[in-house]
């Protein structure tokens, strides 16, 4: 990929967007960490708090529009995600699942909001911190419910399997529970947001570059922009889906940790 960059930049042509476009300069000189993504995360927390505080003030039996919106988001997470999947003791986990869903959704939507236009989850650390929270939580829940000895034994030697299969199954199970689950949970969210932002950059910057070219290229640029608009809608779908999937998988892992093995 890097050699393509050097070739295209030398010709004075289009420099395709790369992972360098995800590095932002800091706003202040003495602190190198205060960059645009950090500002966006703070902004997202502010927006979520203001929205839900205003939606739950003066709660009436016949809800106003804001209250209805807030309650439908909460109801969706509580019913479809927590109650259907975790089952019996779901209320304990609704705060965490709800926070996760709304935080990831808001930060993802920042990818297509004009003037902001950067999905903060495309910086690797944010999804991974959330994945580490989920990892710690579901292991802690499992250990607290079943005791550490039984929990580890149930992971390593899954009941109901013929004993000879343990040679193959135990390493796979250990790798799944300790490595694969948190790794893929964070990587799925990060890679989706990274790829989506990069796609949008390619089509919109490319359309802009075509617009500055000769007349033949100028005529093609509306197609690039139209594709960019279509991709924005597709990105919206992917962003909502990824927030839902992260929360769904968290709920599934917690449900798996709480399940009584016969």
């Amino acid at each position, binding site marked *: *990929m890097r050699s393509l960059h050097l070739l295209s930049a030398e010709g004075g042509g289009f420099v395709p967007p790369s992972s360098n476009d995800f590095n932002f300069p800091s706003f202040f000189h003495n602190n190198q960490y205060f960059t645009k993504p950090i500002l966006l995360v703070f902004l997202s927390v502010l927006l979520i708090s203001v929205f839900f505080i205003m939606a739950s003030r003066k709660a009436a039996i016949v809800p106003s529009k804001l209250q209805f919106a807030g309650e439908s988001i909460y109801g969706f997470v509580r019913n*479809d995600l927590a109650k259907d999947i975790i089952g019996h003791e779901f209320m304990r986990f609704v705060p965490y699942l709800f926070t996760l869903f709304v935080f990831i959704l808001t930060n993802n939507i920042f990818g297509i909001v004009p003037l902001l236009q950067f999905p903060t989850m495309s910086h690797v650390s944010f999804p991974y911190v959330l994945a580490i929270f989920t990892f710690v939580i579901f292991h802690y829940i499992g250990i607290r419910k079943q005791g550490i000895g039984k929990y580890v034994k149930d992971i390593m030697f899954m009941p109901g399997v013929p004993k000879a299969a343990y040679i193959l199954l135990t390493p796979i199970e250990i790798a799944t529970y300790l490595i694969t689950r948190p790794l*893929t949970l964070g*990587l*799925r969210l990060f*890679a989706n947001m990274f790829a989506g932002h990069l796609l949008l950059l390619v089509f919109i910057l490319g359309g802009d570059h075509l617009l500055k070219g000769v007349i033949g290229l100028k005529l093609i640029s509306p197609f690039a922009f139209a594709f960019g608009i279509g991709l924005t809608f597709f990105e919206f779908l992917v962003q909502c889906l990824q927030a839902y*999937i992260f929360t769904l998988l968290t709920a599934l892992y917690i449900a798996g940790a709480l399940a009584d093995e016969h």
Partner: protein
Amino acid sequence: MKGTLNLVGYGLSAIGPAIATGMIFAAYISGVARQPEARSVLQPIAFLGFALAEALALFGLVLAFVL
């Protein structure tokens, strides 16, 4: 990695998840066709399966950029 070998690798690795996504949604469509009332029951399962399969395609894309 020299040249554009990582792009070739990404292209080849994207075949698997593409087939997987097609199979998942083929099963979803068949299920809804046989019993339209099952649509809302099958939908979360279809999207979960799709996201799990697409994750693998995206690992390839990210590695194509990183390497």
